[in-house]
């Protein structure tokens, strides 16, 4: 990202993706790769290259296809984001290729990626100081600016609008559902991020809160919390440590699940009852830190109004 500070100051109105973001798509010639390419181009995103080994020289929707990431970068120049849209068992190789090319953000859309492969990818990414979003992440959208991944599908304007609210959810569907709810209540969004529901994720709620803290256009953040994991606890700790100082609104889904046997797995692979923290612990820690808990989904806009007027 070669920009001077002055430019950064003007266009920093979102996190992860803005209108200057240059995107490369791995697996661009596959069914979902072709689909997402057309959606991104329709949204005005700079999709500068695609990669599918053996299909170099082809084009998808005017986007040139290369045999490898390094070959693509050599021809089209640096890219900011690599989106991984390959079959699950090829995701490790594809993501590692992008990490080795030092692409700053690797978005892994792929679902059902083997967990050991995820371990290897995340460890290599950490070594190379590259951010991984996902796996099983729907992507991120900064309404009116740009998007990565399949978030909002072919009609993102139906649910998302530009404004001051950051949204984070593991679930892609809930990103849209929250976008719709918040848009309908008169607030727009700075950036909406689906982090993916797997047991291991490259980017946590806390990682994104730190980004939203720095983003001048974000005035409050809404998190759609779930059963399992300790992401909400880490988020609460950021507030306690004064590293996140904006209003944080949290909705926790799956309260019924506490009545199910411990270790029951629901929906997302990472949604395991009682894993790391129970619902009660999450509620307690978040409340003590000063987060605003939405007792039901419909109350989220009221809390936003209360927080930022």
């Amino acid at each position, binding site marked *: 990202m070669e920009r001077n500070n002055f430019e950064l100051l003007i266009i920093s109105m979102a996190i992860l993706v803005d209108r200057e973001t240059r995107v490369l798509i791995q697996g661009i010639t596959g069914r*979902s790769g072709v*689909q*997402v390419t057309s959606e991104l181009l329709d949204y005005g995103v700079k999709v500068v290259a695609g990669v599918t080994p053996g299909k170099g020289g082809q084009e998808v929707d005017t986007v040139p296809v290369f045999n490898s990431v390094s070959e693509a970068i050599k021809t089209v120049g640096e890219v900011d984001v690599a989106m991984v849209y390959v079959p699950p068992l090829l995701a490790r190789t594809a993501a590692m290729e992008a990490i080795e090319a030092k692409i700053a953000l690797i978005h892994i859309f792929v*679902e*059902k990626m083997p967990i050991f492969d995820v371990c290897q990818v995340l460890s290599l990414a950490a070594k190379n100081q590259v951010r991984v979003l996902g796996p099983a992440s*729907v992507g991120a959208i900064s309404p009116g600016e740009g998007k990565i991944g*399949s*978030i*909002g*599908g*072919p*009609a993102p304007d*139906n*649910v998302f609008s530009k404004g001051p609210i950051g949204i984070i959810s593991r*679930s*892609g*569907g*809930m*990103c*849209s*559902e929250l*976008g*719709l*709810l918040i848009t309908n209540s008169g607030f727009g969004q700075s950036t909406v991020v689906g982090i993916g529901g797997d047991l291991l994720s490259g980017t946590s709620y806390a990682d994104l809160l730190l980004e939203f803290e720095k983003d001048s256009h974000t005035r409050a953040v809404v998190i759609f919390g779930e059963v399992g994991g300790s992401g909400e606890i880490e988020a609460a700790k950021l507030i306690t440590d004064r590293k996140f100082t904006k209003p944080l609104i949290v909705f926790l*889904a*799956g*309260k*019924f*699940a506490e009545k199910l046997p411990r270790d029951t797995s629901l*929906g997302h692979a990472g949604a395991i009852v009682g894993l790391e923290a129970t619902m009660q612990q999450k509620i307690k820690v978040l409340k003590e830190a000063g987060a605003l808990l939405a007792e*039901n*989904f*419909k109350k989220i806009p009221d809390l936003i109004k209360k927080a930022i007027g």
Partner: protein
Amino acid sequence: MVMDSVIDAGGRPANYTEYSGNPPAEKVQKLTKIALDREGLSGCLVAGAVANFTDIHETLRGFVEGLRQVRPKPTYPIVIRRGGPKQEEAYEMLAKAAKKEDFDIHLFGPETPISVACQKMVELSEQFKVQSAKFKVNGKKQF
């Protein structure tokens, strides 16, 4: 979240399944058959968020095909709340199927919050239970 809403509205889930990631119709068809293979159901709720990349027509086509194979034929209310790619085509298909096969399907789109659709399901389910009880007493069908 759907389950929380059903329970908050006073309903009791009898069975539960879910899918993600744009599955083919066949998968939804099988899931539907399995999830509805229980006696004494008083409603079927298909609720999901506004999908990003899941083909609503494809997945709900699978639901209807599964529904057709459930025995005895479901007479209980069916509430569907969904949004996303090809939702309009999907709902047109569902309305036709409901009419043709005499299914009691109630359709809701993204303008109806998930929790409201869940409340509706519980209400319809209660009505169905009352009517079924009357049917048993009177020995004749109400409609």
